[in-house]
């Protein structure tokens, strides 16, 4: 399978603190790749480096065939990014938000209008299209954010904790959408700290203290560590890491 993200020996240091320590992994086209870990494990730092928002201290990153050090602009044009923070304009409507972000990715005129209504249909947001984002419930706002990140049809999208704070039903719906997107050939890299969501991913990377603690398919990982659920897996890994530290 074609590899769209390749990371080798990635390191990021902030002063004396090593946030990301020697990561090596790759992501195949159309895959849902889950980046898991407790808060502060280095998930967001990793995603930010992959998106070109943060310069790595050392290592090699290739995204969509472009080098993160020398071709950050090409990378930006071929990825979609949904930030951990809420990142829509609350005083604009759903329609206007999508249009605005489509516009800054170079869509305009008929093409922009078409793509906007396409996304509104695809995400089933027709009844909300002229509602100001500030009056939408959080689950719906996250759907709009996801739609916005896909406005320029990027081959890869990065979702940084897209479901944090969202209720279980909305989370379920959100993951169905992600699944749908991946079936269309878009690669999805997603971070989360909900262990039940890990089951939905094709491949998992569990980070503890900036390092890879486990990497593989959910079922493989479970049988390898002889656990029943993702939650148990995570707890056993965390316990090991604490034992190592002591």
């Amino acid at each position, binding site marked *: 399978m074609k590899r769209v993200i390749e990371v080798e020996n990635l390191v990021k240091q902030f002063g004396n603190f090593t946030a990301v320590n020697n990561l090596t992994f790759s992501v195949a086209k159309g895959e849902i790749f889950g980046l898991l870990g407790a808060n502060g494990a280095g998930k967001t730092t990793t995603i930010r480096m992959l998106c070109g*928002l943060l310069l790595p201290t050392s290592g090699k990153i290739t995204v969509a065939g472009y080098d993160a050090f020398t071709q950050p*602009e090409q990378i930006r044009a071929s990825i979609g990014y949904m*930030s951990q923070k809420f*990142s829509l304009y609350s*005083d604009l409507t759903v329609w206007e938000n999508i249009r605005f972000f489509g516009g800054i990715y170079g869509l305009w005129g008929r093409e922009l209008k078409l793509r906007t209504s396409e996304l509104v249909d695809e995400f089933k947001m027709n009844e909300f299209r002229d509602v100001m984002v500030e009056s939408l419930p959080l689950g719906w706002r996250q759907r709009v954010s996801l739609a*916005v990140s896909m406005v320029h049809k990027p081959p890869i999208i990065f979702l940084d904790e897209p479901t944090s704070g969202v209720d279980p039903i909305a989370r379920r719906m959100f993951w169905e959408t992600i699944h749908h997107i991946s079936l269309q050939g878009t690669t999805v890299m997603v971070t989360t700290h909900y262990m039940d969501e890990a089951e939905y991913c094709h491949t998992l990377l569990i980070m503890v203290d900036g390092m890879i603690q486990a990497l593989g398919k959910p079922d493989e990982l479970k049988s390898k560590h002889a656990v029943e659920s993702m939650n148990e897996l995570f707890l056993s890994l965390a316990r090991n890491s604490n034992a190592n530290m002591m």
Partner: protein
Amino acid sequence: MAQGRFLNFVSKEFKHILRDTRTLLIVLVMPVIQLLIFGFVISSEIKNADYAVLDYSHDYLSKQLVQRISSSGYFNLKGYLNSFKEIEKAFKNGDAKLVLVIGSHFDRKLQNNRYAEYQIITDASDPNTANILASYAQSIINSFTAEHHAAGQPRARVNIQSRMLYNEEMKSAFMFVPGTMVLILMLVTAMMTSISITREKELGTMEVLLISPLKPWQIVLGKVIPYIGIAFTNVTVIILMGITIFHLPIRGNLLLLVGVSSLFILLALSLGILISTLSSSQAVAMFMSMFALMLPTILLSGFIFPIENMPQLLQWLSLIMPPRWFLSALKTIMIKGQGLQYVLKEVLVMLLMTTIFIILSIKKFKVRLE
């Protein structure tokens, strides 16, 4: 396509402003109100101030003098006092702001070319008013005594005539119209841009914008353009109001005035951008703008308090205050009607400051991206 992206960005920015009624009120209506308040409330001219007279002469000329003062338009005679003790009472009751004491034999002393004695006592609990009233009274009395001194036998004497050049009528509009303009431009351009940029940071939208193909300078420029439009609207409104309501003459070249104003708008914008790179939230940006921009603009720019009267340290401090230079250039062009060569120093200083702020902002913005 690149223009399309950019126009799209600018139009979004306009939507933000137009939908936020409060911001819109601040940037468009407040300047008008502020100018009217400064115009009608802060006035350095004093008319019809109450005064009282303690006259020890009660002769022809002393009465003439009192009449002259009362008819000057500046003073309103509240009455005569009977003893020195009553003076303090008059001040304390608020009956008089100024008391004129006329010594005995005023008439005879003046006629005989001797010194006629009088005293001006003012209520200096408001020192500015006291000062102005004392000097008004002084100048009326001076001209009165000059006329009646040794009447009939003119003598060679020094006759002082002061003229208030460029503002013969001592209109305070000459002070507050340029001052308000500086204040408003500082507020609208520097403060509003710094707040609107930090808002994107606070909301998290800045991150998404930085990942997009838009270049950082396009983002900043797109955020700033609507405020440039608003700033020019403010300049136009303030100048028009100055001319029509406050009869302020624009003696200099209008093009030069617009040029210097544009330079200051650019300066204020670069300062606003710098503040936005230094602050992480809208509240911090607001706080920094208030203390770093508004207070110095009011206190140290020479808008209300003359720079020449400040302690040396504050005078030096005022040198690094952008509004000081703009205010000085504005007054030179609007009121004195001078050309570019007379505001060259101000223009160069403002250019230098703008360059420094822009360079600092670029450095700071890059650091943030690392």
